[in-house]
C-alpha cells in the first residue's frame, strides 16, 4: 500500500507545494493537511514545510505551534509518528518542544540563499536511513532565522547521543552553533532541518537529487516499522 505523507499548510507556508511534490516523486501519496484540522486523516508521517507561518509574528513558529493540527501532531510524534520539519517547520518543532534549542536571527543578519553542502551524521533516523554516515549532500539553504542555538549541556547531549543529524560543510550560512543544520529527538522519528531537501529532488529545479533521500528514508522506515 502506498504510504500517505501529510504536508501541513499554515497561513504563510511557502514550500508546502514543493514538499508535497517531493513526497510524490519519492513514491508516496501526499496528503494536504490544513492548520485548522483537528485530525491527521490517518497519515503515516508528516512534513512541516518551510515558509513564514503567521507572518513570523512574535517568533518564527511560535504561533503555528498552537494551531489545532499541531496539537495532534505533537501527540502523534510522542507515539512515534515520523515528523520532518523543514526550515520554518524546524522552528515550529523547537517551539513545540519536540526538539531542543531554538532558531534565531542569522548571526550576520542577512537572508542567506545558496546551495549548501551538508554532512549527514545520523543515519538511524526515520528521515535519513538511506544515507551513509558521513555522506555529503548538496541541498539549498534559504533562511533569515536559521541560527541554531542551545545551551552547552543540550549541545553536548545532542552530540553524545548522536542526535546531530547534519552539519554545514564548507561554510556555516547562519552562525549555527557547532555548524548544526539538522537534529533529531531521542526516538529518531522527529527531525528538524534548516536547509530544504524538498528543493533538491529534480534535475530541472534543484542543484542535486540528494534531497530525495529524506523522503525515501521515511518510506523505508514505514515499511520496516511494526504496523
Amino acid at each position: 500500500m502506498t504510504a500517505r505523507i501529510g504536508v501541513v499548510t499554515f497561513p504563510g507556508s511557502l514550500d508546502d507545494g514543493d514538499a508535497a511534490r517531493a513526497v510524490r516523486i519519492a513514491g508516496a501519496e501526499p496528503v494536504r493537511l490544513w492548520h485548522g484540522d483537528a485530525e491527521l486523516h490517518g497519515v503515516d508521517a508528516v512534513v512541516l514545510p518551510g515558509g513564514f507561518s503567521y507572518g513570523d509574528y512574535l517568533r518564527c513558529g511560535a504561533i503555528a505551534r498552537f494551531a489545532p493540527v499541531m496539537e495532534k501532531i505533537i501527540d502523534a510524534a510522542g507515539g512515534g509518528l515520523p515528523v520532518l520539519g523543514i526550515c520554518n517547520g524546524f522552528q515550529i518543532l523547537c517551539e513545540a518542544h519536540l526538539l531542543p534549542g531554538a532558531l534565531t536571527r542569522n548571526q550576520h543578519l542577512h537572508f542567506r540563499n545558496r546551495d549548501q553542502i551538508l554532512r549527514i551524521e545520523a543515519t538511524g533516523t526515520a528521515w535519513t536511513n538511506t544515507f551513509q554516515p558521513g555522506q555529503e549532500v548538496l541541498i539549498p539553504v534559504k533562511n533569515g532565522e536559521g541560527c541554531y542555538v542551545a545551551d552547552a549541556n543540550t549541545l553536548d547531549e545532542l552530540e553524545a547521543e548522536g542526535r546531530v543529524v547534519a552539519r554545514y560543510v564548507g561554510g556555516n550560512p547562519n552562525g549555527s552553533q557547532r555548524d548544526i543544520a539538522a537534529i533529531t529527538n531521542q526516538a529518531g522519528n522527529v527531525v528538524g532541518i534548516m536547509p530544504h531537501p524538498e528543493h533538491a529532488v529534480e534535475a530541472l529545479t534543484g542543484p542535486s537529487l540528494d534531497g530525495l533521500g529524506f523522503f525515501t528514508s521515511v518510506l523505508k522506515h514505514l515499511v520496516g516499522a511494526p504496523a
Partner: protein
Amino acid sequence: MPRVVVDVMLKPEILDPQGQAVANALPRLGVNDVASVRIGRRIEIDFTGEPDLDRAREIADKLLANPVIEDFTVRLVEADEPAEARS
C-alpha cells in the same frame, strides 16, 4: 484599569545581532560611548476584568517568550501611563 506589561529580552548569553547592528550604527550619529545595545520586546495586555498577573505569567511563559532563549518580566502599570513615564 491597570495594564499588564510583559518585557521579553534575549538571555544575556544569546547573541543579539540586531542589537549589535544598532550599536555599530551609533558612531555614525556621533555617539561613541555606548558599550552595547540589546533589543527586546514590550507587550501590553489589557484584561477584560481585573488584571491577572498569574495568567499573564502563563501567557508569557507559553507564548510570548521562548524560555530557551529569552527571559521575561511581568508588571502592572496604569493603563494611561505613557511608555516614557518611567524615564
